[in-house]
């Protein structure tokens, strides 16, 4: 069973606020959806299924991809809060 508390815990991990009513709805949906998708079974051991699939890493040569500041203005225009050529972020470390 997935409870309201479970949904709230997952929501904290996912960095999303959910109200109590929403958490109840999502708990019901998740119960139904997860009991459907768990039929996935899988005859191989889960560890055989590495996440890398059929893809390999493709690297590019180190170098200058474009002229300096070519995108700076456009990118900063999309940022909610800027100062000079910087994006303003909230203080991460706080005093206890």
């Amino acid at each position: 069973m997935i409870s309201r508390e479970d949904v709230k815990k997952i929501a904290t991990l996912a960095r999303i606020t959910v109200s109590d009513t929403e958490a109840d709805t999502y708990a019901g949906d998740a119960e139904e959806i997860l009991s459907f998708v768990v039929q996935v079974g899988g005859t191989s051991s889960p560890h055989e299924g590495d996440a890398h699939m059929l893809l390999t890493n493709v690297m590019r040569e180190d170098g200058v991809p474009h002229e300096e500041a070519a995108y700076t203005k456009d990118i900063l225009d999309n940022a909610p809060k800027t100062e000079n050529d910087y994006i303003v972020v909230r203080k991460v470390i706080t005093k206890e």
Partner: protein
Amino acid sequence: MKPLNELSITEASTLLASREISSVDVTNACREEIAKRDGDIHAYLEVFDDAETQAKMADEKIKAGSASALTGIPLAVKDNILIKGKKASAASKMLENYTATYDATVITRLREHGAVFLGRTNMDEFAMGGSTENSAFGPTRNPHALTRVPGGSSGGSAAAVAGHLAIGGLGTDTGGSVREPAAFCGIVGFKPTYGSVSRSGLIAMGSSLDQWGPMTKSVTDAEILWNAVKGNDPLDSTSLPEGVYPKRAETKKIGVPMSIMGGLDSSVMENFQAAQKKFKDQGYEIVTVDLELLKKVLSIYYIIMFAESSTNLSRFDGVRYGLSRQGSDLIGDYAASRGEGFGTEVRRRILLGTYILSAGYYDAYYGKAVASRKELVADFNKAFESIDFVLTPTTPVPAFKLGEKTDPLSMYLTDIFTVTPNLTGMPAISIPSGTIEKEGEHLPLGAQLIAPHGMDERLLNAAKRFAGEVK
């Protein structure tokens, strides 16, 4: 001559080349139709005010003798494909005010041809849905039956093309988002081999599943668009160089996985049998293929898609771009921005993805799904040793009514036939297969043809014969 907005790419291109019409004529014909009908259909989120300027430039290109089949063709662009300087919102409040800082590679390549970008089209928020009802800006309606959905997530592009509000359309397909709306709206929708077209500049959902796709009035039109944008791109390391996959000998056999056709409505089954007969008449032998894992594809797909989309959407933090809201601290800022910016279905999928990937559940869900996905690819590769294509209906039902599917799981189940080619990375196309009558309305259906990796051209050729475009 038919009204200019009703032309296909191929037809418009011939008339443009002979200078009987100009790009400005055909662009304005589409704009007039939008003004007349898009109030009801709501295919577009924005019609670009520079469309006529683009058309004038295309006309110059035609005059200068440097035109291609796409020069001057007005296209509807799904709202998750970036066009520099234009809004790209993925139909989400999160990106409502986001302006693209660069062109997607598909846009760069179409620009070189002088194609005209008419406007950006509605979709399910972040491409999550199969009806376009999940758009944060209101649903799109099916131009064939306004009480019904156009399908999704590329429902706006499908409705724009089917309603002749554009000459061709661009979509993206993660689990059927090009093919399902194409089937519901009676047009062609093509998902090429994974990696054949660059994903650079497409707003990501499930990165191992996402692929760009054309939505058009004919198979030939889809081929023209695909040829213009395909090919390796240094900006997408999963885009493939030519010749990665081996050519396969032609068998003239088409496999039908009868084991998953059980629950089909009799009218849909009849339509599907007629499609099989049409292929038979063209010299194909129809054989039954036994692909046991097809019964599990929805489970495999939804687990992988939840996991990948929750991961991809973690980039929206309200700091660098997108909706920003204040909480009590930094973590609170994230939670408030994401809580308000994402709609119900997007949050549901992020939560499910986070659950599935959390310690203790990872092996039971994601690990098994990835293992099963590998088996599925192997099963299809084996089946394709003795057949050229796999044939299914595109959808188990025709377009349903707005508001009809309220339970998320019942919506997910309509993807039963379309998710497989995304899981295997194989190319698939939905071709119109006629209409069925339901409650007095004639509703389109599609037949889906799936080919092995890299056999896109053979797939398009078979589809062209099916559609009667070539002998």
